């Protein structure tokens, strides 16, 4: 019932790391191959099922976090505040989360309203961030969600975003948006 030696080493390193660690850095640190590390991460993910911990990742950066179901206990201990967002801010966040990387003009085209205020609100809460400039006329900023977003919404990764059915019952992922 023991985890593999690689999984144990990965767990120890992720435990002391105070920020997400890439698979490449994990491999370098513990002197294992990237493939073995990948398997170890899968193993850890499996082992954390039903415990107080879970593995969170964005792209190839990994971190151990507390399981979302434990949030009330952890929040009590830390005295953490509840996140509150207006429905306008949630709409903008939804566009950014599901459509990233996305420009302000694209968000506004989808929502049909000016989004300056909600974008600033989300940025000051560190839920979204400027990713860089798009190579397009005017070089607009592209926005995407952050690590804090995953944490605040208890998502193990962007793949865990709730799947929402469009009005017809078509999976929304199949919809194409008209370009703004």
């Amino acid at each position, binding site marked *: 019932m023991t985890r593999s030696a690689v999984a144990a080493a990965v767990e120890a390193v992720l435990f002391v790391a105070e920020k997400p660690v890439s698979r490449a850095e994990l491999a370098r640190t513990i002197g294992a191959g990237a493939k073995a590390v990948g398997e170890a991460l899968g193993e850890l993910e499996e082992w954390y099922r039903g415990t107080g911990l879970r593995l969170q990742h964005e792209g190839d950066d990994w971190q151990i976090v507390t399981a979302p*179901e434990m949030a009330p206990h952890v929040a009590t201990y830390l005295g953490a505040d509840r996140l509150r967002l207006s429905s306008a801010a949630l709409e903008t966040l939804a566009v950014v989360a599901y459509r990233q990387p996305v420009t302000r003009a694209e968000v506004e085209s989808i929502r049909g*309203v000016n989004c300056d205020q909600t974008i600033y609100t989300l940025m000051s809460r560190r839920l979204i961030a400027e990713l860089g400039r798009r190579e397009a006329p005017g070089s607009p900023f592209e926005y995407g969600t952050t690590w804090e977003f995953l944490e605040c919404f*208890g998502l193990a990764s962007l793949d865990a975003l709730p799947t929402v059915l469009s009005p*017809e019952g078509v999976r929304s992922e199949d919809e194409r948006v008209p370009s703004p």
Partner: protein
Amino acid sequence: MPVGPRPPDVSIVGFEGPLDLLLELVEEKKLDIFTMRLGDLADEYLARVRRMAVLPADEVSAFLYIASRLVLLKARSLLPSLTPAANDEELDTEEELRLRLIEYATTKGRAEALGDRMRAGERAFHREGGTVELPPKGGDPDALAAAWLKVMALTRRTQEDVEVPGERYSVEQRTAEIEALMAERPKVTFATLLGDRPTLGYAIVTFIALLDLYRRLAIDITQDELFGEIRIERKVQRMEGLTE
């Protein structure tokens, strides 16, 4: 009195925007978003927009834009010969508006799903460390400076958004402007000083500036009746004395 800045993040009379209002109408009438004729909603949509007289002009225009498209669609269904100009086809078809509406409906569903998660409060927490007692080393001053720059940029933006957007007038500056104006025109009305579409902040600053000039005996203020025109008259000698 003109409308001041709208408080941030407040939805307008229950709607997040023009597409939200349209979606609301579709849902109220239990119409099939994929097959209904959007032009049929033109009258109702306009009626709702008419009731929104309190909105700032720039926001009304977004509603009016959708309303005008609905009216156009309705007109086309009544007069099939009224076909769109070839180059407008991509922008102005019913299908394009329908796709936007469906996309918006999907976005709204996603926002609700995220909102449910937020309200459930089932979030994760990372460790900030603390059990490791090694003395830290290798800090990068540039990274620290970059973090400070980021914090400042975010702080600035948040404050600017909460404060009055656009022009910001100081009483001092406004007083000087009024003095300059009155050096040329001995009599003006308060309405003239306010201009066409003053913001609340601009009106208040102008009013305080006038009180200040009055206190300094530079001007006379008269008003014949309650809510009547406020007239401002220059006191010649004083004014010259002040502008030296």
